[in-house]
């Protein structure tokens, strides 16, 4: 098969058929904001008291028993943040970022959701409302739609979901892309053209196909080897994803499970004419049994997350300076360990804001304490900080989303949750 330049195809297809141009932007375009935002969703409810142990709280060790993280300085102890909080010993990169003033840790933070269903909790985390299933769109998409015109001097998608499908937080009227590695061979130009024509009267499929093709064109451009079906040394066909993944393998980066998604995220965000906001999931935080402490199940997941974020910084290169990564979860876990050396669904959790654009080196928490009286409903870390305030602060100062939009369209009826100021460098 002849190698075809996907970008050339896109241009040709647009001219020949018209359909593609009519139904969608055909490529990401330059201009607009330099700021990058990455939202990492920890699905399953991260145990904030293990990720960010309040080792200085007099009740912490009692509640956590054998899985409590020891004070800084002891064997397997926390990495010190201040006199009250530390980071889990697996979070070495985040600890470095804290020292470099590139990390803010939020604690006792929660979305408005106060029940304990993962699925409704995630819905609220993504829909930006006070209740689950309130709307079918997400706060990132609504923020993109509310960007001032000088920030959107571009034609293409500003947002990208790293995954096959678009999660709720990215859904809405603003066009967004999704990308996931493919191990299938790409199509020839003629067949793709015919499918495009076949979809011309189907608004959903034509839009999705156009978005997919636009994403591939950025991947091609970022790769600098924009062949539709690149031939490898042995003559086998390689997919775009394999082409995209190749430099990372060649460089022999660490084997973090997020490697592929981080690499793609960095490729997209580094590109001048690429998207500016990316979102991806990290799974496996629902530690009901045998959670572990300084070592064990959760420690291993935290280490992988930490390695993934380190890789992200390396791969973003100079763009790290313009980047803010928000890492958040749907809710926290019980203050005490349960009967199976794990923790059940709770309320307030910890969250991280990391990146070169972060005014870091701080813990932002109005610590409610872990005494029995202080616990929410007698069992969970009490929420004292609204996640929406943190998110609004980031969107306002980093992406310049207007306050009026933040209070109404992006986080409906949220004027009471004031944006946290000075989270990022102007």
């Amino acid at each position, binding site marked *: 098969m002849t190698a075809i330049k996907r970008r050339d195809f896109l241009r040709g297809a647009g001219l020949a058929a018209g359909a593609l141009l009519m139904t969608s932007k055909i490529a990401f375009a330059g201009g607009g904001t330099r700021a990058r935002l990455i939202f990492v969703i920890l699905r399953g409810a991260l145990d904030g008291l293990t990720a960010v142990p309040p080792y200085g709280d007099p009740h912490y060790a009692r509640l956590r028993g054998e899985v409590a993280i020891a004070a800084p300085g002891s064997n397997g102890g926390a990495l010190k943040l201040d006199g009250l909080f530390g980071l889990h010993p697996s979070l070495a990169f985040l600890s470095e970022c804290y020292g470099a003033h590139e990390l803010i840790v939020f604690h006792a933070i929660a979305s408005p959701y106060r029940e304990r269903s993962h*699925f409704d909790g995630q819905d609220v985390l993504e829909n930006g409302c006070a209740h689950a299933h309130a709307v079918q769109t997400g706060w990132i998409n609504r923020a993109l739609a509310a960007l001032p015109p000088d920030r959107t001097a571009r034609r293409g998608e500003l947002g990208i979901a790293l995954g096959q499908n678009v999660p709720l937080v990215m859904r809405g009227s603003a066009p967004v892309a999704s990308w996931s590695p493919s191990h299938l061979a790409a199509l020839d130009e003629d067949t793709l053209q015919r499918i495009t024509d*076949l979809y011309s009267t189907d608004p959903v499929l034509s839009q999705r196909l156009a978005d997919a093709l636009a994403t591939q064109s950025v991947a091609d451009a970022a790769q600098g080897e924009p062949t539709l079906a690149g031939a490898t040394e042995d003559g086998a066909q390689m997919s775009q994803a394999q082409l995209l993944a190749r430099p990372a393998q060649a460089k022999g980066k660490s084997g973090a499970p997020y490697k592929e998604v981080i690499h793609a995220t960095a490729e997209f965000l580094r590109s001048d004419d690429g998207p500016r906001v990316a979102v991806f999931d990290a799974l496996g935080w629902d530690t009901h049994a045998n959670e572990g402490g300084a070592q064990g199940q959760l420690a291993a997941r935290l280490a992988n997350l930490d390695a993934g974020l380190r890789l992200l910084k390396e791969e973003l290169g100079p763009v790290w300076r313009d980047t803010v990564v928000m890492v958040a979860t749907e809710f926290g876990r019980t203050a005490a360990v349960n009967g199976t050396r794990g923790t059940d669904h709770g309320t307030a959790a910890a969250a991280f804001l990391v990146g070169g654009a972060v005014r870091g080196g701080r813990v932002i928490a109005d610590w409610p304490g872990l005494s029995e009286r202080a616990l929410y409903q007698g069992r969970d870390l009490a929420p004292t900080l609204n996640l929406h305030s943190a998110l609004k602060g980031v969107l306002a100062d980093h992406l310049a989303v207007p306050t009026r939009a933040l209070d109404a369209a992006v986080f409906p009826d949220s004027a009471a949750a004031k944006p946290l100021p000075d989270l990022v460098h102007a």
Partner: protein
Amino acid sequence: MDDPALSAAIAANRFGLGARPGELARVGEDARGWLTAQLSGGAPQLRGATLRGSADILSQALKLRHERREARAAAEAANAAVVMKVAQLYLPIYVDETTARIGEALTSERPFIEHLTYFWTNHFAVSVDKVSVFGIAGSFEREAIRPHVLGNFTDLLLASTQHPAMLLYLDNQTSIGPNSQLAQRAARRGGERRFGINENLAREILELHTLGVAGGYAQADVTSFAKVITGWSIGADRGPLPGGGVPGQFVFREQMHEPGAQTVLGKRYAEGGMEQGVAVLRDLAQRPATAHFIATKLARHFIADEPPSEAVDALARTFHESGGNLPSVYRALIGLKQSWAQALAKFKTPGEYIISSLRGLDVPSQYADKARTSFALLGQRIYAPGSPAGWPDRSADWDGPSSIMKRIEWADALGQKMGAHHDAAQLAPQWLGGVMSASTHTSISRAASASQALTLLLTAPEFMRR
């Protein structure tokens, strides 16, 4: 009056698993009758000489776990070797199970029942990304779901809750009553370990299996229900838990059970050992909230993403009045005018897309093994929904740009592989019948090659939906 060609396509493609050549003709004028006839007879069982029971598999795994405990004490290398042995035990079992499942789907002549089986397996979801259920997710479906698909919801709920796969997946096997004999004995000995409940299974039964998240329960109900089902565990001939039982089978361990009465949803359940939990589950199955929740999910799966409320209410009424008799509910579903009102209302999941493609091409069961990897490739690895909520069931969950592109690439590969042996123009009406559009017909007829014609049929908008 419905258009019979449209109804036949809805029956075979939305309620079934996709029309095989000749199937639409067999459905003929009586789409409702074709579906109703499938409800007769026992639930279909999977064929496969190598398929093993959960207890058989688990007892072997338990032995390995025991070895692992000893190895861990001995040396790190030996421990790693035993971990490999568990993977070696489970992988071929998973392969056999999924192959048998696909094989049945490819040629089933009761595809509606097979589709219902998938629905219930997804409702009572376990996910093989938790390694402990990797080897028994398939046998869970065969043992807990299939036998009750044409039975009663209460039996389905009891069977799934007591199956080792569910107990392991939602961590109930080691949940211990804080005042149980075991906890008290340990307290007397002054041990370090704090014994207590794990509320994971109790919460998900209320939220995901019965009442639904808006079904009117509170945290206190979760906690007391979790106490009720302490001691619902898995037998082992040795290991840290007392009480024996048949290795790998459900066992009630009295010594772990929280003694005394518990109040769940305002009703007091006297102490009764295992029967206390059975009583709570029986009551949950009969609650109006459960009827409404199940009706909503069925209607969402078989009618539309946002099903009409009259349809949901009608199904809930039948569910409630029949005491959870599932064939009655299915008959009500078939009888609803809303079921036939709008063709192509559902976007196929990757699994539905793959199965319908292969059925359309009349791929025989012996090729099921080759089809296995397609499911992971397109984003729906079998038995791996990744969460106890199961796979989501709305178009927006499946129609992402990357997802569509993968489907197209997969279709193209299939078109290139099989196009030479099939006449897409002749297949198209047999797949799509009354829902085929003029543009699809034209596109296929003008294709540059037989393989491209097949690719176009496979990627047609009408075939992406059901």
